[in-house]
Structure formats: structure tokens, C-alpha cells
């Protein structure tokens, strides 16, 4: 068992727990390109952990390794204290790790509610034949899952569009629906790939608020990628900084902000 005393207290008084996810010496290559070079870091229970870095630094690749979409050539993923064998993305999802995508991957043909309901799939246990012959049980399960989905829809303030087909929504709302679907899984670890990319200021503020209260109210552990330093500083407890596939900084926002290597990396690239 992990030591419960292992952790720390944040400035705003939240208790951060032991390590849930540890990436150990991860190296990922695409042909000749090394997208991730021997990176190690960890994520603690209850934390908002950010991964930042310029475009092409390897942030998304790292998230894809955590969620099983990419398989690293070297290194180990240690989840809840045990080394994780090579896994398919759906198996990772079933272990309680939910995610969103940088380029939004929603079920465009389904309504918002149906999308959020798919987030409940890992919680639905009744088998195919049981559903056919034991209607009561299936209905009860459906109702319970529906209640969770509706709660999350309320929480993310998308009640007004619950029946709207996702394909008709504007970009900012799509991002929010994708977050709702991931949150509906009640994940132990939630991975967000640039949840605020392409949003206007108001939408960014909303999204920041949701991320913070998600973490606060549900105690969800969050790892998020953000391009923009400013946003990250407000949201996160600890930050990993990547550049050209290497880790160039790791620590609290203040520590990272004052790290010379980080300053250089950020000055060296044009912001967008």
C-alpha cells in the first residue's frame, strides 16, 4: 500500500495524496523522430498537474502514452504502485483513466446526452443477454447512469443543449461536451489535451473554473496540457515543462517560472 502520509498541502489548503501515476524513463520514437526522450515524472492524487511546452515538444505524445494510444519503446508506466503491462487504450480507460483530445473526438452523430452517456460505458455491467431477459435490472442500471450523466451536464452548464446533435455545436461547446463525457466516467485520473485551445477569453475563464471546481468538488486528479503559460500558472499545483521531447523543468508554477532553461525555451519560440 502507498503511504498515506506521502503528499503535501497546497497553498490554498488542499491535501495532495500519494503518487497515482508514475512515468519512468519514457522514450517514444516515430521512425527517426524522438518525440519523448527519457522523461520521468509523477502525478499525485488530487493534483492538477500541467504539462507545458512549445508546439511539437511532445506533450500530446506523453498524454497518448499515459492513455495507451502510443506505446513507448522504453520506460515504464507505474499506475497505483504497480508497473502497467502494455495495454490497449480501451483497457486503460477501464482502469479509470479518461481523456479528451487536442482535436476533439466526439460522436458527431449523437446528441450531447448520448455522448455523455458513452462516458458511463465502463460503469455498465449488465451483460447483453441479461439486458434482453432481465429488463428490470437493465433499466435500473440505465437510470442510475443517466442520473450521473445529468448531474455532470448540470455541473458543466450544458443543460440547454442536452438533446442537440453534437455536430451542430460551435467549437467551444464541443470542447465542453468532450470534457463532460470524460468526467462522466468518474475517472481516477483525467487527462486533458489543451482544453482551452482555440477558445475566446470568456470560454477560457469558464473552462478554468470548471477544471478547478472539478478538482475541488469531485477530488478528480487532473493532468492537463496547455500551451499558454499564464493559464497554467493559475490552475496547476505542479508543472512539467517539455521542449524538443526533453523534460526541462518540473516543479511548482513559481519554481518553473524562474527556471532559466524554461525561460529560454519560451523566449526561443514565437507565442501564438
Amino acid at each position: 500500500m502507498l503511504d498515506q502520509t506521502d503528499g503535501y498541502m497546497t497553498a490554498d489548503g488542499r491535501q495532495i495524496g500519494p503518487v497515482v501515476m508514475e512515468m519512468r524513463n519514457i522514450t517514444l520514437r516515430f521512425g527517426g523522430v524522438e518525440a519523448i526522450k527519457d522523461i520521468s515524472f509523477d502525478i499525485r492524487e488530487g493534483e492538477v498537474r500541467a504539462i507545458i511546452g512549445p508546439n511539437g515538444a511532445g506533450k500530446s505524445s506523453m498524454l497518448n502514452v499515459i492513455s495507451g494510444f502510443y506505446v513507448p519503446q522504453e520506460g515504464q508506466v507505474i499506475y497505483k504502485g504497480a508497473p502497467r503491462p502494455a495495454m490497449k487504450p480501451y483497457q486503460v480507460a477501464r482502469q479509470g483513466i479518461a481523456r479528451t483530445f487536442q482535436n476533439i473526438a466526439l460522436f458527431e452523430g449523437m446528441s450531447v446526452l448520448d455522448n455523455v452517456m458513452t462516458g458511463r460505458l465502463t460503469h455498465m455491467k449488465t451483460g447483453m443477454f441479461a439486458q434482453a431477459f432481465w429488463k428490470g435490472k437493465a433499466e435500473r442500471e440505465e437510470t442510475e447512469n443517466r442520473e450521473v450523466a445529468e448531474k455532470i451536464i448540470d455541473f458543466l452548464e450544458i443543460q440547454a443543449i442536452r438533446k442537440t446533435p453534437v455536430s451542430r455545436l460551435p467549437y467551444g461547446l464541443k470542447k465542453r461536451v468532450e470534457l463532460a463525457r470524460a468526467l462522466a466516467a468518474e475517472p481516477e485520473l483525467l487527462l486533458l489535451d489543451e482544453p482551452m485551445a482555440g477558445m475566446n477569453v470568456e470560454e477560457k475563464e469558464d473552462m478554468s473554473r470548471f477544471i478547478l471546481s472539478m478538482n475541488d468538488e469531485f477530488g478528480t486528479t487532473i493532468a492537463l496540457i496547455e500551451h499558454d503559460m499564464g493559464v497554467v500558472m493559475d490552475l496547476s499545483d505542479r508543472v512539467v515543462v517539455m521542449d524538443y521531447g526533453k523534460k526541462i523543468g518540473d516543479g511548482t508554477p513559481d519554481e518553473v517560472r524562474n527556471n532559466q532553461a524554461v525561460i529560454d525555451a519560451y523566449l526561443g519560440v514565437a507565442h501564438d
Partner: protein
Amino acid sequence: MPTDLLYGAEVLLNGLMAGVLYALVALGFVLIYKASGIFNYAQGVMALFAALTLVGIMEGQIPFSHLINATFGTNIHHFGWHVPAFAAIFLTMIVMVGFAILVQRLIFRHLVGQEPIILFMATIGLAYFLEGVGDLMWGSEIKKMAVGLPQGGSLWVEENTQWLGFGNEDFYGFFLDKLDMVATVIAIVLVLALVAFSQYTKQGRAMRAVADDHQAALSVGVSLNYIWILVWSVAGFVALVAGIIWGAKSGVQFSLSLIALKALPVLMLGGFTSIPGAIVGGLIIGVGEKLFEFSFGPMLGGATENWFAYVLALIFLVFRPQGLFGEKIIERV
């Protein structure tokens, strides 16, 4: 009522019944296409294979008996027992699930992400392979599908619709085939069950998820392989039902696999990805071809049913290439 109108109504009814069956066959295609982007050329042969297997099991035939006899110099053909239809249908379904698993494991798992044309070619190969296996397993003689479906015209319908003629001597009541009527009921139940399955069950929801976006489906914990096996199994079930109905109509023989050709115009009309499209498309084609034959057949030398569906589908393609329920295709520039 004038008799012409009454005959027309009878034709309409027959057309609707044929249409439901077309819809059923088309659904087999739509299910697989939606979930995996594979246009399954083998769907018709699957119906033939399912029918052969069903009859073989019922009659206690020893599978591959010709091969066994040729290899070992034996002379065995039958186990000497008969299996009741219900049990045989159940066993055949197990065979079709086994087939689904093999198809996924041995073929399509290795072709993930390939061009649609390559997937299509693979199903052509599969179709001929399955046809050969069917022959080898069960022999190539024409067999009877004796699962106890009723045959002949329904006297009951005839007697109870005679009054519609209001004393007209020429009208004896509607002539409806009993097998057609039962088949229609079976097909309707199956279509409704499929729709309910895809809308309201966990597996159905996962199936729709896979049909919509693979990445997203993976991220919510859906195994693509599992869903593809499931979809091929459901298509196998649809093929079995179609095989039973067609087999009961015209015997279990190679031509049974041609029912797939009847589904093509339905798909052109309804779109390849729409379940309601397959249903409505099937009905339109069923009714259309029967009414057309009834009205213009004599003028055009008959047998218009052989080509009417295709012509209708072609005309449709020109004006609405995405099908009845497909999204409008707008070229991005």
C-alpha cells in the same frame, strides 16, 4: 370498389412484404459498414452458408463427409439423428458467431486502417472462400428448408377480405402467401429488435460509438475488436434469418446467395449508413417493383422486377447520391 384497385392493393401488400425482407438483408450490410467501413460482399454467401449449416445440422449430416470419405476411404454421411429446428437454429447461430470471430481474428484485424477498396476486396475473397467451405462441409445438392414455416396461400385472408369486392363476382379476396406473411412478421420483429438493441443496450451504444469515431470509442473503454466481432455476429444472425426465409421459399441452393443483389439497390436508395434508410429503402423498392410490374409489366414484356430496382436506384443516385437519409455531401474547397 373496382377490381383493378383491389388487385392494385393486393400488389401493394405483396410489395410491402417483399420490401421488409429486402430491408432485412440490407440491414446486414449497413450494420457492418457503419461499424467498420467494410462493404461486406460476402453477406449473401453468409445467408447461404447459414442456411446450409442449419439444414445440415437438422438432418444430422456429418460435416466434411466427402472429404473425410475421400481421405480415409470411409463411407459416412449421417450421424443418424435429427435435431429439432429450434436447437439447430441455436447451434447454427453458434457457428455464425464462430465465423465472426475467425473473420475478425484472421482477416480484418490485420487490415485495420486500410483503404475501403482493400477491405472490399478482402470480402470478395471471403465470399468465394465461404462458398467453397459451405460446399465442402455440407455438399452442393439442393436442400429443403424444413423448419416448419407454413406454405401456400392463406385461405383465412382470402375469405376475410372477399367482402371488399362488395359482391363483385371477379374478386375472391386478397391472395397472400402464408410464408410471406410469416416472413414479414419475423422480419419486422427482427428489425425492431435490432433498432432497440442499438438504441437501448450497452453493446448497442458501444456499437454506435464505434460507428461514429474509433478514437473516441477507445477513449470511453470500448474494444473495437469486440464490437467488430459483435457486428459480424449480428450480421450472421440476419443472414441466418434471411437464409431460412429464402431457403423456405426456393430451396437451399447457390442462388440463395444472390439475395444480396436485391439489397444493393436498397442501399443505393437508403444510404449505406442509415438503418431507417435501409428500412424505408427496402419498402420503396419492394412496393415499387411490384406495382411497376403490375402496371407496366404486360406492356414491357414482363419480368421488369429483374431490373426495376436498379433503374430506380440509379435515377435516385443521380439526384441524391447520399441516399434518402445520408448527410448532404458538400465539397470542401
